[in-house]
């Protein structure tokens, strides 16, 4: 499956049965230089549409919202020392959490790349 996106600009891509979550390239550009990323603990539960962490750039603070519900099985610890990975590599090195989904049907409610790009164009 290719990436799916939320209206709040998070993405999820499936890696086996685990979803990898971060923010879109558009979102990192909007935020500018990222200074901190606050992430949940491994083992905690996340809920679709609810806050799982926060991100702060030089210019702005923003909450992070989970695209799906499930359990956090891994977090990207390297962001503590290298938050700029979110800017340089939002879809690879800048991933934030890995989630074991409770219900993969939740993915159907999210936008695919084409729909997301259209959504971004509409927003701006």
């Amino acid at each position: 499956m290719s990436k799916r996106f939320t209206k709040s600009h998070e993405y999820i891509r499936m890696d086996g049965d685990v979803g990898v979550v971060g923010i879109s390239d558009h979102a990192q550009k909007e935020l500018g230089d990222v200074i901190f990323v606050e992430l949940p603990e491994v083992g905690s539960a996340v809920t679709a549409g609810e806050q799982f962490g926060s991100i702060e750039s030089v210019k702005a603070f923003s909450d992070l919202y989970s695209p799906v519900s499930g359990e956090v099985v891994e977090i990207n610890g390297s962001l503590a020392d290298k938050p700029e990975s979110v800017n340089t590599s939002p879809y690879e090195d800048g991933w934030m959490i890995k989630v074991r989904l409770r219900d993969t049907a939740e993915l159907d409610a999210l936008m695919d790349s084409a729909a997301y790009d259209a959504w971004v164009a509409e927003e701006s």
Partner: protein
Amino acid sequence: MTGQDLKKTPLNQTHRDLGARMVEFGGWDMPVQFSGIVAEHHAVRNDAGLFDVSHMGEIEIRGPESLALLQKLTCNDVSKMQDGRCQYNALLYPNAGFVDDILIYRRSADDYFVVVNASNADKDWEWVRQEAANFDVDAANTSDQWAQIAIQGPKAERILAKTTETSLVDLGYYRFTSGAVAGAEAIISRTGYTGEDGFEVYVKPEEAPAVFRELLEAGREDGIVPAGLGARDTLRLEAKMALYGNDIDETTTPLNADLGWMVKLGKGEFHGRDVLERQTANGVERILVGFEMVDRGIARHGHPIVENGREIGIVTSGSHSPTLEKSIGLAYVPIALRQPGTELTISIRGKDAKARVVSTPFYKRKKD
């Protein structure tokens, strides 16, 4: 306000061609960043940055009572100026609150060029125009007749020198002269809003794109970059330079803003003088201080400073400092809390975070 309603500087298309991200600022469509705020910030600290500040306003005052008018409108002593000098000053209301903070350029004893903030330009002009009616002066709002480009950073002098015959070595800090820059007739001054050495170049609007391009070209090997309002804000904050609308406004006086050095009570009558005299005699209740965060997080404009659940002060500016790699800011606090080392509690989105008052400026350049 839609994009169509925003004012554009003569460099608007240049910024777009250079890949800037544009934002609304004080009614203007301005570049917030080109390569990135942190990269641009470091470029200005280490090499040079080029800013479009054409959105700032210019008011020109000529005539026999020009000095008398400026003395009435401002708190610093304009009579101490000499030809070719610049002075940081403030237009004050009768309550000593800021109409604006300004730079005055003295061309001659009866000819002054006043540079004002973009977001205040119309309001300032109205204020000056009303007062000017009582004086024998010819005052004009010439904001539309000037573009302004700022080149800032340790390599600014070397780069600008490649584009002008005017001797910059002889142009001291807070002085100005006229000359040609990249073939365009210009006013060249040496002040700045970054804490670095640097210059402003004022040219006719139609000349600005070519001058901007030529300065970028002249500075290419020295690492010059176009820089936006984002880096301008982090640079000025590290240098503890006030931003109108954040750190100073009509509700704060120069003494509240810790700009007492700019208040010259002995110069004669001026708007707000009695208030400033009282504040000098009795002390101020609140004052602008610098702080750095002890806990993680960035305190930003509008975050309250709290004590036992009560709001006792307010953050006026706050950001990550790229040079210090710390989280810093400015805040109004009760005078008793002004000492460096004093602990503050700042409520960041409802969560208490510790901060500490520090001496300012946060950053001071090493002079050769």
